[in-house]
């Protein structure tokens, strides 16, 4: 196809790694006109997140969140997933790379395999499951986990009896079990060549192998587990089905300890960096463990509590106060098992140096991340430079760009980070690629050509029912013939048949043929779950000219044959009931039109700081006109007062470049000294009036309203000439006022943060302090710097600078919020009195300069802008994103995005990342000429409505609204079809398409009728 285009750039992208970050990038790109090839080493996509039980700080189930994304990526017309695959070479340049991919043999033909799992049942070889961290078992032919995508099984060649027999004669049970003939012991794998415009690397990291630290006893003492093992223990679908028990004796542990920083922040034994997420996941695990078993007494042994993310500190406070989690500052030196009991003695040094021993029933090691063992070769393959730690080299100003143009990086491979930041980078890298390949957008994607839809209006139902055997998956339990016979004379049913695999290609063709021959106008397929197969079958009947909503899937496998094995009679009866219910619903189905709305391909960005400008440039490079509204008279925002990054880069230079680039870009209109006056509309069609009189029509909006610095009132600020903020110190240094020998700088952390009413970490202040401390020390080693802190939160690779500061002689003294330092003026100096927990006594220190590390606040306009665009703010005043894990730049209402400090405190690189992510997400919307609305939405009958506002008050998406005539109307574009409105409406004015009350009532009737015991 690319031959047809004039572009020299390819409209396709290679994504290496199918974790949550890679999937996000893939979906964003594929949804906005790019062909995506995803290469994944494992037999399924999903990455690390699928192994997790729940996520912090909301306690959302990881699988619930990721599974729909996997299904979506797996089924996407423009995403090709290559599993068990690795890139072996890359040639070419940005815009046109040639990539060779080696695909390992799967021994199962993906085209034939239906994922039924018959083979797995028959396979006699059990092996420890890596997915369950060897706490459980799997077969030699297996799927990585039950919700795997693709759900094609794979044979583990190292374990398979047949493959390890030189003659391949032994066993072959799976081959016999497979009715689809998908097993291929002769599979040799293959090599494929891909031609792509850009490459995204998201291979993730591997976990630190804690067995290296022998003194902690992993692999030696059974009840010492790694945190990822504990994650599987907690998982309801894990090896212990969510029951917290000890591997040694299945006893329920009471005292459980978590040891932090195992493999992280450790120069001698392991990795020097901070893995960023362990403090929080340990907190989460202790909470969830406690929720599973209230007798558990969790203790977390830590050095520094790094709860730097949005609402993290509150989460830790909850763990302490509501769940009774004990947090113990300590260095753990060794763990020994008590012979015979499996209990563990832990030796540790408390903060004041005293040596303690404590007994635990179970110990969890909070292991960190490190680059894959083959990271060096990996980097070489893609021709990118790395840091000495083998992380890819990136810049804080371009955090997703590698040293090789056109090759981007995302996720924890770029640096340790948690899920939302990974997702954010996924969108961010998508945004970057969209800008790079803008002109090639849409050149390689395909769209299905479909026959016109048959008009079935007014026709009596002619339902065709196809009952699937699913090999023997269904038919070994459910008597298919009986089902066929029972359904035959149901009203409206004109045709019934059975099929071996409804989802196999030949049977799909048969179904299409039958629709035509029998002139069917409704189709019911009785097979497996609609969650994975509904879309497939909908497409099938659509290809036969039927509206896709004239279809219903009766699940007689997951919800019948599989869970009632051996009870053939009742299972058959139940299956009949299930099919009859589907038929009853089908009878009342109507063709649904998927409405579409036009999109104004322009974007409005509120805020002209780094976030706003970065997003603007990316979107403008993608080819979408952008309007920036900036309240101040000039662009720049808060970063105007920042001179260097922690890494030492010149921020002012960067800012100058950005401003120039924005001003020069023909696609960007800047409105300085202006604010939003009024706004209206919905995704694709917003109209915003500005105070400078201009009216902007736009399809998307990015709220990049930014933040401000807290103006301290404590510690003599504003009263003593010796007291500065970090920002003021930074400015002095930048202006060449060098520290003098013997001068003492005392820095106080968490000024205006992590305390009521601002119970959150401002995230940047620790780095500011470390940065300025290093600067002072480097400018004059004779000057003295002390940092009085609560927890030093130099997370991720920033840990290096913490170490550098200490090496330069910066002194760190911890304080507690209950015992804050006291400051008094004494002559031309200030005296700082603080408690030293290591020495266990009070210190009185004189300082020439007291430097306050002040926190961040959302910009005062956040509230007003939020109210105008009807998006919520959290209690701290920051914008509340659609979902804290998986939709970190979206708002619940489509077409609105957030970036920068208005979302939460963050560093420059993170702001740039989020801004690029917003540009990626907005790019998805703006790249569509028209947006399609799902057919499954609530329909509002205005004539029945009395505008009682119940719906308006409960709808999570803001689709009901008060129209110009003062009565309720319903914006179907915003509707997500959840039906909460229909549930609450006292006038029955709302009905959800395909879940209408009459359909549900018909299903209830059918459910009852099919029970012979009931007489009615």
């Amino acid at each position, binding site marked *: 196809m690319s031959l047809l285009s004039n572009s020299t750039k390819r409209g396709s992208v290679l994504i290496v790694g199918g974790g949550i970050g890679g999937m996000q990038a893939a979906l964003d790109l594929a949804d906005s006109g790019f062909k995506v090839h995803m290469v994944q080493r494992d037999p399924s996509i999903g990455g690390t997140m699928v192994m997790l039980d729940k996520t912090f700080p909301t306690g959302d189930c990881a699988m*619930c969140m990721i*599974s*729909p994304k996997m299904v979506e990526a797996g089924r996407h017309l423009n995403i090709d997933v290559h599993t068990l695959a690795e890139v072996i070479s890359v040639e070419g340049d940005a815009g046109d790379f040639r990539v060779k991919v080696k695909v390992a043999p799967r021994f199962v033909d993906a085209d034939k395999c239906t994922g039924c*799992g018959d083979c797995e*049942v028959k396979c006699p070889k059990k092996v420890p499951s890596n997915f369950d961290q060897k706490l459980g078992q799997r077969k030699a032919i297996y799927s990585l986990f*039950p*919700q795997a995508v693709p759900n094609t099984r794979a044979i583990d060649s190292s374990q398979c009896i047949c493959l390890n027999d030189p003659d391949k004669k032994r066993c072959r049970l799976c081959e016999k079990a497979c009715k689809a003939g998908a097993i291929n012991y002769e599979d040799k794998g293959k090599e494929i060549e891909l031609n792509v415009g850009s490459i995204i690397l998201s291979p993730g990291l591997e976990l630190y192998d804690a067995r290296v630290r022998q003194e902690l006893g992993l692999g030696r003492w059974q009840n010492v587990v790694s945190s990822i093992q504990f994650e599987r223990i907690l998982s309801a*679908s894990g090896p212990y089905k969510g029951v917290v028990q000890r591997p040694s004796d299945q006893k329920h542990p009471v005292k459980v300890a978590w040891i932090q920083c195992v493999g992280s922040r450790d120069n001698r034994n392991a990795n020097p960096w901070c893995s960023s997420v362990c403090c929080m996941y340990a907190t989460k695990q202790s909470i969830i463990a406690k929720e599973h078993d209230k007798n558990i007494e969790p203790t977390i042994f830590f050095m520094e509590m790094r709860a730097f993310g949005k609402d993290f500190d509150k989460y830790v406070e909850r763990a302490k106060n509501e769940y009774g989690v004990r947090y113990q500052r300590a260095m753990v030196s060794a763990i020994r098992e008590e012979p015979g009991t499996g209990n563990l003695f832990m030796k540790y040094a408390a903060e004041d140096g005293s040596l303690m021993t404590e007994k635990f029933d179970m110990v969890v090691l909070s292991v960190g991340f490190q680059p894959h063992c083959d990271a060096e070769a990996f980097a070489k393959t893609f021709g990118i430079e790395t840091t000495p730690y083998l992380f890819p080299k990136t810049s804080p100003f371009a955090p997703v760009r590698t040293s090789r143009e056109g090759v981007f990086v995302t996720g924890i491979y770029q640096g340790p980070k948690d899920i939302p930041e990974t997702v954010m980078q996924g969108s961010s890298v998508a945004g970057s690629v969209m800008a790079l390949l803008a002109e090639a957008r849409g050149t390689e994607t395909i769209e299905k050509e479909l026959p016109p839809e048959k008009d079935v209006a007014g026709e009596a139902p002619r339902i065709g029912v196809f009952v699937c055997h699913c090999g023997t998956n269904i038919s070994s339990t459910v008597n298919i013939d009986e089902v066929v016979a029972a359904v035959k004379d149901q009203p409206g049913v004109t045709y019934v048949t059975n099929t071996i695999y409804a989802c196999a290609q030949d049977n799909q063709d048969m179904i299409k043929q039958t629709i035509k021959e029998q002139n069917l106008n409704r189709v019911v397929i009785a097979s497996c*779950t*609609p*969650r994975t197969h509904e879309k497939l079958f909908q497409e099938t009947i659509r290809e036969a000219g039927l509206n896709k909503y004239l279809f219903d899937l009766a*699940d007689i*496998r*997951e*919800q*019948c044959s*599989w*869970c*009632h*094995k*051996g*009870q053939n009679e*009742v*299972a058959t*009866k*139940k299956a009949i*009931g*299930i099919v009859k*219910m589907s038929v009853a619903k089908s009878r009342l189905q109507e063709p649904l039109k998927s409405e579409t709305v036009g999109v104004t391909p322009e974007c409005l960005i509120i805020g002209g700081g780094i976030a706003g400008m970065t997003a603007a440039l990316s979107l403008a490079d993608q080819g979408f006109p952008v309007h920036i509204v900036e309240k101040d008279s000039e662009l720049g925002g808060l970063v105007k007062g920042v001179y260097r990054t922690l890494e030492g880069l010149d921020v002012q230079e960067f800012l100058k470049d950005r401003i120039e680039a924005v001003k020069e870009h023909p696609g960007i209109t800047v409105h300085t000294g202006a604010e939003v006056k009024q706004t209206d509309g919905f995704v694709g069609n917003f109209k915003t009036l500005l105070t400078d009189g201009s009216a902007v029509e736009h399809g998307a909006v990015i709220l990049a309203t930014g933040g401000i610095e807290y103006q301290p009132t404590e510690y003599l600020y504003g009263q003593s000439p010796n007291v500065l903020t970090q920002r003021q110190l930074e400015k002095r240094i930048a202006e060449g006022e060098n520290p003098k020998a013997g001068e003492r700088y005392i820095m106080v952390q968490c000024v205006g943060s992590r305390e009521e009413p601002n119970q959150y970490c401002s995230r940047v202040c620790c780095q500011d302090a470390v940065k300025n401390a290093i600067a002072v020390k480097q400018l004059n080693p004779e000057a003295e710097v002390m940092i009085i802190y609560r927890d030093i939160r130099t997370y991720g690779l920033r840990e290096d600078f913490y170490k550098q500061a200490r090496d330069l002689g910066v002194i760190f003294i911890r304080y507690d919020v209950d015992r804050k330092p006291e400051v008094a003026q004494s002559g031309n100096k200030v005296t700082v009195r603080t408690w030293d927990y290591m020495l266990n006594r009070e210190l009185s220190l004189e300082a020439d300069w007291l430097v306050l590390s002040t926190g961040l606040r959302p910009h005062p306009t956040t509230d007003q802008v939020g109210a105008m665009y009807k998006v919520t703010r959290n209690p701290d005043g920051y914008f509340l994103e659609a979902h804290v894990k998986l939709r970190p730049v979206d708002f619940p209402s489509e077409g609105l995005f957030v970036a920068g400090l208005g979302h939460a405190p963050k560093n420059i690189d993170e702001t740039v990342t989020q801004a690029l992510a917003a540009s990626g997400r907005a790019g998805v919307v703006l790249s569509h000429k028209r947006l399609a609305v799902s057919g*499954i939405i609530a329909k509002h009958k205005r004539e029945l409505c009395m505008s009682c506002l119940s719906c308006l008050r*409960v709808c999570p998406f803001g689709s009901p609204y008060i129209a110009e005539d003062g009565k309720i109307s319903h914006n179907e574009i915003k509707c997500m*079809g*959840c*039906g*909460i409105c*229909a*549930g609450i409406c006292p006038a029955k004015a709302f009905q*959800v398409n395909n*879940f209408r*009350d009459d359909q*549900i*009532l018909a*299903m*209830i*009737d059918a*459910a*009852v009728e099919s*029970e012979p*015991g*009931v007489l*009615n």
Partner: protein
Amino acid sequence: MADVAEAAEQILVSTVEAPHDTPADWTPNVLAFACHYCAFAAADLAGVMRLSYSPSVKIIRLPCTGKLDHIHILSAFEKGVDGVFAAG
């Protein structure tokens, strides 16, 4: 002992309904309203994991349990269903 305690727990005497004999040909008929994204997915998983459970439950899938209407529940009972649960 444990068995006795368990049995005692299981005997559920209704204070609302009049006492009655259970006909021999009766089997429980239970309807479940399940949210597509949570409980319905959990039911799928139960199947995938081949967990065996009572066949008396039939599921009606909803886009979200918020959609569940009072009348759905009442009509189920009116039609003679023995139990209803919603899961989301």
